[in-house]
């Protein structure tokens, strides 16, 4: 069902996030990175002018924001130590010019749960602490059961954000809903408000404490996790900042996930790395959203479990499998 709209991958105006992208596109897509490079570039440029005269200097090539490749001396480089303030600032701002979306093809999900383990590994979670979980769904008695991966829906009208008393959970310009565990007071109003049960609370000390000591809190990864605060799916915004696909999307062995940018109308399959037109994919496959009647306007789309690629084998008891 997804053999269609392959042409999207050949459309150079709408490049996806696959590894075949040119470096030029990469930086174009992530203007913020470009800005950082520009700042760094400008700083070292003066140094470069000075060092130019020095014979035998060790030069490195640097790409500036306006796509010029310049050479700067190695000695001119200074590692920027990423501190909490900067992480908080960039994390709250989000990635400019993007509207991230996820498409989940239910026909392909066989509950391999690789997405879940990859996610839990990245975010330092226990096996029963989910940013994303796969559920066994059945609409009614006479309809067939199917597996449904369920991340945070990153709603455009997020009930959790509305009720948060301290702006700990918020909506970014790129459509992602994040949680700031430096701010969270642990009232759990957002858990009460979320109709998708997408949030978890750290009832006890998180799984990883010692190893995360001293690591500045990255709001886009929500690591270190913190006792008494909320955690949730972040659409792997730390990976998006690097131009990579989310952890779950890359880990899926069955091609269930597509991830991309609504503004570019393109999504990339995490397994096959093929890029598709989002609008086409949703149109051809009758894509839908979870409980749209609630008015939450999710950013996650589902493709119905039609023409399944495998036999449905239900876990004996999804409750007990933990």
């Amino acid at each position, binding site marked *: 069902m997804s053999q269609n709209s392959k042409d999207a991958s050949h459309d150079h105006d709408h490049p996806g996030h696959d590894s075949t992208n040119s470096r030029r596109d990469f930086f174009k897509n992530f203007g913020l990175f470009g800005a950082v490079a520009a700042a760094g570039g400008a700083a070292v440029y003066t140094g470069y002018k000075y060092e130019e005269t020095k014979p035998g200097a060790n030069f490195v090539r640097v790409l500036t924001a306006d796509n010029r490749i310049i050479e700067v001396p190695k000695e001119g480089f200074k590692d920027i130590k990423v501190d909490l303030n900067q992480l908080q600032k960039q994390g709250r701002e989000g990635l400019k010019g993007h509207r991230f979306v996820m498409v989940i093809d239910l026909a392909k999900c066989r509950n391999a749960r690789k997405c879940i383990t990859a996610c839990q590994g990245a975010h330092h979670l226990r096996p*029963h602490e*989910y940013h994303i*979980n*796969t*559920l*066994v*769904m059945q609409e009614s008695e006479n309809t067939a059961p199917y597996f449904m991966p*369920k991340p945070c829906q990153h709603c455009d009208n997020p*009930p959790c954000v*509305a*009720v*948060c*008393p*301290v*702006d*700990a959970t918020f909506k970014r310009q790129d459509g992602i809903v994040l949680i700031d565990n430096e*701010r*969270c*007071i*642990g*009232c*759990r*109003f957002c*858990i*009460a*408000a979320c*109709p*998708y*049960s997408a*949030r*978890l*609370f*750290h*009832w*006890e*000390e998180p799984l990883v404490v010692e190893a995360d000591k001293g690591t500045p809190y990255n709001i886009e990864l929500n690591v270190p996790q913190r*006792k*008494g*605060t909320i955690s949730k799916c972040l659409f792997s915004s730390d990976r998006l900042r690097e131009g990579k696909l989310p952890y779950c999307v890359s880990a899926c062995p069955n091609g269930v996930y597509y991830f991309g940018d609504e503004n570019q109308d393109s999504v990339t399959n995490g397994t096959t790395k093929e890029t598709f037109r989002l609008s086409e994919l949703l149109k051809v496959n009758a894509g839908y959203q979870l*409980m749209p009647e*609630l008015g*939450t306007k999710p950013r996650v789309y589902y493709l119905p479990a039609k023409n399944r690629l495998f036999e449905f084998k239900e876990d004996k008891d*999804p*409750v*007990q*499998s*933990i």
Partner: protein
Amino acid sequence: MASEVNTDFLQDKKLDSIAADILRPVGITQGFVVWMGFLGVSLMGCIYAYYIQWDKGLIVTGLRDYISWGMYIANFVFFVATSLVGMLISSVLGLIGFKWVKPIARIAEIIAVAFAAVAGLVIVSDMGRPERLANVILHGRIQSPIIWDVTVVTTYLTISILLYFLPLIPDLAISKGRMNHTPKWLQNMYEVLSVKWQHTPEQYRLLLKAIRILLILIIPTAFAIHTVTSWLFAVTLRPGWDSTIFGPYFLAGAFVAGSAAVVIVMYFIRSNYKLDKYLTNHHFDMMGKLLVLVSIVYLYFNINEYLVPSYKMKTAEAIHLHDLFVGEYALMFWSVQLLGLVLPIILLLFSFFRKPFSMLVISIVVLIAAWFKRFLIVVPTQDHPFLPMQYVPKAWMVYQPTIIETAITVGTLLLVIIIITILVKFFPVIPIWEMAEEQHELDHKSQK
């Protein structure tokens, strides 16, 4: 409420006997020491329970990701509800002009102050990061009903404290010099708290004016406090909470719980302090009638809240209602509705049951039922989220309150009782000057 006070009552001999009656129990007695000792030691145990929770996190409670609000939130709603009776009795009934509420108005305010003050602590006990409480002010977002709640609860507490304290000032002044049986520090405290009250007609005029303004202000505040508390639930999309009548439904329930609490405190004051002359059978009779009235209003809202969705049986609502009517919570649900609401209404229709002791028994049942009613509002809704609970430990799917959680909840109740005990033991529990003035007026009229 009269806008002027005839200060002639200060010369009336009756004042001495009234003051003597009301001030007799004031001060430290052996019974008080034993009772406070018992409460204090029990509270220590509960504080230790909170220390464990502080140390280990909310894992020590029965709460988990699906049912993440439980006993604490139910208790919070209960406390806010019970505190509303201060507004009902002194404000609504007082302003309408019911004379019989005079001797119990202060008791109602004591209940309002005690429950509203501890309600804030209850909420803190539910927080995962209580040390970040200041964030609510530093980073408060006006969109969140929690911010509304914090604002109105503190406002209500402030007005309630003023409504307790202002009418107390003339009493403190009257009590000076009549307190020889009490410790010196208490007399000194009266001296300070009576703020040099001289009993001039002008002072009384100002006092009545101030009280009147507060009595009017507290009505919208009280409506807001419990309506906003109900919105903590009603603004969500969940079946069982997603209701438009939650505001008035909660308010009506609040008056039931509060009236029952007033009756209980009245009974103990009357029997321990021998104040039968002031808290008469008539007062219990009237409180019984009030309880019937508010209970019938509450029953009406209950019928609306449960009958309408159960007529339609929308899928998600149906699961929730099934759980309440015949499922897991059926026993609690029907006990609360029948024993805590329907039966009291029937019994209290007969004057035979509006006697002090039977009123006490009925009120205790009503108050306990009121607590469990809040539990039934808060917990079962979370039992059935829109999407199924899967791949989590069994213990995550059911809510079983733990001993630590229960101890912390009991601790907050103890704190309420401690505040009530201190207020009724160290200060005149019935307004002396209002009683004396009323008596004087009465005598004056009969002489004519």
